[in-house]
């Protein structure tokens, strides 16, 4: 695991965005070689999305040959509802960049056969050649996507009933009315994310600190599903100071000491002289 600790939310967002940018540029995507990116929703990745949009607007990054797969979507929420994850991705990311609609994939929570939709999503990932980089967040209860505590660590894309904690946490987006919050969601499984070549988890804020502690300093445990990534060969956790509040001083010092090495991963790519 790489644990990247930045001072605050903005710096963490920028670091993560630069990392994604560099990964895409190094991959050199083209019409026959798409870069596949797994994407999260929620308040944590907003800063990262803003930065990526900035890089696109500056001409440093294109999403023309990038395929995206979102982690989850609510069941039964109309697609154009302002709180659906489709709306979130459109408003916060897709509408500002040059990605083609046919290259974006978000689970459809309004189909008649939900499990078939999940199976089809898995097939689409496979057909795209698997995911190069899966970006995710972490819930206060340590969940990744909607893999609530108790989810199998080898699970695949499926329908999940949301935990009470999650519903309460989401109520703020539905006028504080618990009855309006969806109770089910479609989500990629822990196993689905584990299949990705590389996994990057964004964790910011003191309220996530305990979950981060459980995820990286305790054992692999299906009650804290993010802990599964201890067994992934390429995991990177990007966090701010507040998120480290429950970690051992020793852990924090160790990884902070490596920042000069890790920061090389986000250096601006050398601009190629144009060949005639």
């Amino acid at each position: 695991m790489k644990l990247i600790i930045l001072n605050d939310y903005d710096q963490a967002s920028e670091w993560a965005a630069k990392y994604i940018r560099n990964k895409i540029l190094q991959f050199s995507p083209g019409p026959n070689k798409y870069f596949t990116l797994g994407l999260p929703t929620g308040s944590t990745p907003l800063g990262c999305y803003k930065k990526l949009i900035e890089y696109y607007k500056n001409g440093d990054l294109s999403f023309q040959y990038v395929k995206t797969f979102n982690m989850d979507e609510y069941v039964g929420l109309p697609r154009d509802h302002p709180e659906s994850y489709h709306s979130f991705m459109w408003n916060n990311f897709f509408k500002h960049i040059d990605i083609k609609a046919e290259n974006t994939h978000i689970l459809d929570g309004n189909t008649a056969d939900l499990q078939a939709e999940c199976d089809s999503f898995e097939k689409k990932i496979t057909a795209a050649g698997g995911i190069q980089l899966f970006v995710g967040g972490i819930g206060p209860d340590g969940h990744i996507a909607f893999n609530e505590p108790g989810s199998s660590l080898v699970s695949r894309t499926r329908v999940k009933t949301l935990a009470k904690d999650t519903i309460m946490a989401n109520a703020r987006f539905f006028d504080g009315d618990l009855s309006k919050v969806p109770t089910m969601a479609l989500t990629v499984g822990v196993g689905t994310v584990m299949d990705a070549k590389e996994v990057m988890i964004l964790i910011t804020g003191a309220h996530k600190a305990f979950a981060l502690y459980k995820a990286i300093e305790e054992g692999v445990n299906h009650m804290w599903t993010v802990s599964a990534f201890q067994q992934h060969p390429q995991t990177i956790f990007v966090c701010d100071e507040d998120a480290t509040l429950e970690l051992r001083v020793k852990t924090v010092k160790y990884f902070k000491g490596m920042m000069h090495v890790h920061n090389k991963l986000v250096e601006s790519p050398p601009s190629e002289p144009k060949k005639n």
Partner: protein
Amino acid sequence: MPSNKSVSDAPITQFINCRILRDNELQREDLWVREGRILDPEKLFFDEQGYADKRVDCGGSIIAPGFIDVQINGGYGIDFSQASEDVSDGVSFVAKKILEHGVTSFCPTLVTSPPEVYHKVLPQVKVHDGGPHGAGVLGEVLQMLLLQTCLRKRSRCSGTRAPTAAENGVCFTSCKLPCAGFHLEGPFISAEKKGAHPEKYLRTFKSGGLEHLMEVYGSLDDVAIVTLAPELPGSQSVVRELSQRGITVSLGHSAADLSQAEEAVQQGASFITHLFNAMLPFHHRDPGIVGLLTSDRIPAGRVVYYGMIADGIHTNPAALRIAHRAHPSGLVLVTDAITAMGLPPGRHTLGQQVIEIQGLHAYVAGTKTLSGSIATMDMCVRHFKQVSGCSVQEALEAASLHPAQLLGISPKKGKLDYGSDADLVLLDEGLNVKATYISGEEVWRKGQ
């Protein structure tokens, strides 16, 4: 549910680098247009995997819904109240010129005239949508939306053709509903408050209400608004019948007191013609028509709109502010522009009278009675914003959203909602018109 492509093959235009007036605020959003209507880009993206064919860089401009002028008597030498042989040409000429002021829809206004004039003028202009030829004469549009009203009262449909096709529950065959287009200001107005209207053609209501109106006007097809004085005996049934036909009834050129005005509102009147002008002044024990702005006897769910000529001449800025603060959501900017608008100083004809231009003032020749305004709509918007201190969004809504709501054609007109007609005006920071679009097509650009 994400469906195949091809809801339509029509080209899609994306206006970028702009601020749009939506949801009562200026938002930094792109505006998407297809087939003359505002398009929902999120639906386009997810349902059709579609994208823009053409991008228009607005250079930071403000995009507002096209302005709607519900009281305009003519301009550029054209007088709508003149019974000429080529009224249609005249209306079209003005329609084209006022695109420069950001006006994309208007109600050609006829002042008090003898029946011969109405009989000659009204049939010559069939209301139509706007286009590169000029602003739309509100009518067909009104038809489309009033067809929704029509469906509710199908049994009383007096259209000339039975509606056949239905789309989303609204009939779109061009059933000629008897309501749309012209603003008939008079002749059923008060002699005491005639203003510049010729006294000899004023009339009172005879028994038989609406039939008498039909005799005078000849036809109520293509009529959007009628201004009348509610204190005239017999007005109540006329107001009621006109309102039921979907014609907006406006109170003006009247010496009515507040209770007479409220009675008219209860019968269906919903507009006040140029507030303060040609009516009793506000009095603290009988506010008159002006009192409608804060009346508590307006039926629930109804709004009384009021026209204001914000040219700096017809209304003192302090009075404009009082009205605006008392009832901001009802304020409708109108030009009440006369023949001379757009022309150099001198003498010109209005209805059956001669008027004289002096600077920005237009008087009944030989008097100091104001004859109408020669300010343009965009001038009115700027002036209104400046003297009222209101926001850009409020100033723009007074010229677009409110008139559309008054005529019941919102959100098709007067808004930039998904599905609204793409009648647009591009403005700079100072609210000067840079370009005008009708149904998504550019119809005027500054400097060309």
